[in-house]
């Protein structure tokens, strides 16, 4: 459990079974760090398979993909129909100050990150 506005454990099953997300994570090994205000969660992968969801601090250097934003940014991004420029991670980064690291993996796994946002948004708005 976490005191964050979003708990990745709540979508663990989706992370493993959603056909699009599972496909787009193919071959990925390493950590994805997601920081919501001061809450840090990370998804640990090995060759495209989710190994663990961690709810503790992890350094950016240990992660291939890092996304950080305050609570307000995430609430706006998770809205069912976000206001202009909160429509996805990248637009929120460019126009509203969300942090995304610049790495090969961040760009290569952008299809997966987009799908992850869809799954998060769906759950946040009362979906399964």
């Amino acid at each position, binding site marked *: 459990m976490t005191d964050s506005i979003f708990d990745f454990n709540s979508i663990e099953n989706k992370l493993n079974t959603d056909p699009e997300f599972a496909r*787009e994570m193919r071959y990925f090994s390493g950590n994805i760090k997601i920081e919501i205000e001061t809450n840090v969660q990370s998804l640990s992968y090995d060759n495209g398979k989710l190994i663990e969801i961690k709810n503790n601090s992890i350094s950016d250097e240990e992660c291939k993909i890092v996304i950080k934003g305050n609570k307000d940014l995430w609430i706006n991004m998770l809205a069912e*129909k*976000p206001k*202009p*420029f909160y*429509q*996805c991670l*990248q*637009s929120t980064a*460019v*126009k509203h100050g969300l942090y995304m690291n*610049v790495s*090969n993996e961040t*760009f*290569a*796994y*952008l*299809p997966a*990150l*987009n799908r992850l946002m869809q799954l998060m948004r769906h759950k946040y708005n009362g979906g399964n």
Partner: protein
Amino acid sequence: MVKHDPIKGQYIYLNVDGTEYRVYYEEAGSGIPLLVGHTAGSDGRQYRHLLCDSDVTDNFRCIAFDLPFHGKSLPPYGKKWWAEEYNMTKKLMMDFPNILSKELELDRPVYMGQSMGGHLAIDLASNYPDDYRATIAVEGALRSAAEYVEVGMSGIRFEFDNPNVNRASTGAAMMLNLSPHSAEEDVRETQWMYMCGGPGVFAGDLFYYYYDHNVTPEEASKIDTNKCMLYMLTGEYDPNTSPVDTQKAADVIPGCKFEPMEKLGHFPIIENYQQFKKYLLPILEEIKSK
């Protein structure tokens, strides 16, 4: 019963600066010629809904072309294009519709384009007002948003022309330009067209979109909308050319008309054509009445 779209396509050979290009275009309708230009890294398929819309094609001969290196327009045969980095320039952007119009013997067509095609609408109105009766900039501005311009071509190539990143990511990146009000089928189709692009072409197109297109307020103030009327439409969800950016152009171009568009992003013509059409039809009606 066989179902067809009312679209006919063919190839034309265009000579631009001594190079022969085999250019694909497709058309539908009859009446006032309407040349339509696609966005960076995509192709003329973006106009498939417009070309099938009798509310437009009853009075306009709509011609959608694929720039070389895009869609069904291959790189120029006989030129060692693989030995040089692809970059789209303002001159080439203007040359292709100009020469296509001349070869098809069009009578002062209307030009409409979105994204880099939208920027081009402003460049054509500024540089070739005698050759077009009107231009329509969809997501156009004097310059693209500063946050993106500041990334630089090296940053652009790292994201969009990177051997470690496949072209599915170029499609995924377009999510930032798409409105959350657009139907998922249309969002995915828009992204698909980007995933189909040639290697390095989207990044190279951005050379024009972010850098070679740079209209000063002084140049913009001289655009003669009595000769070539300039219409501008911009979606509220477009971070690359926001309504604020387009408004800056509208503020300095005498006589132009600008309308922000609700619930639309950077690709109005393909991401939500029915919503876009509400803004387009009054413009076409005005052009028709002149």
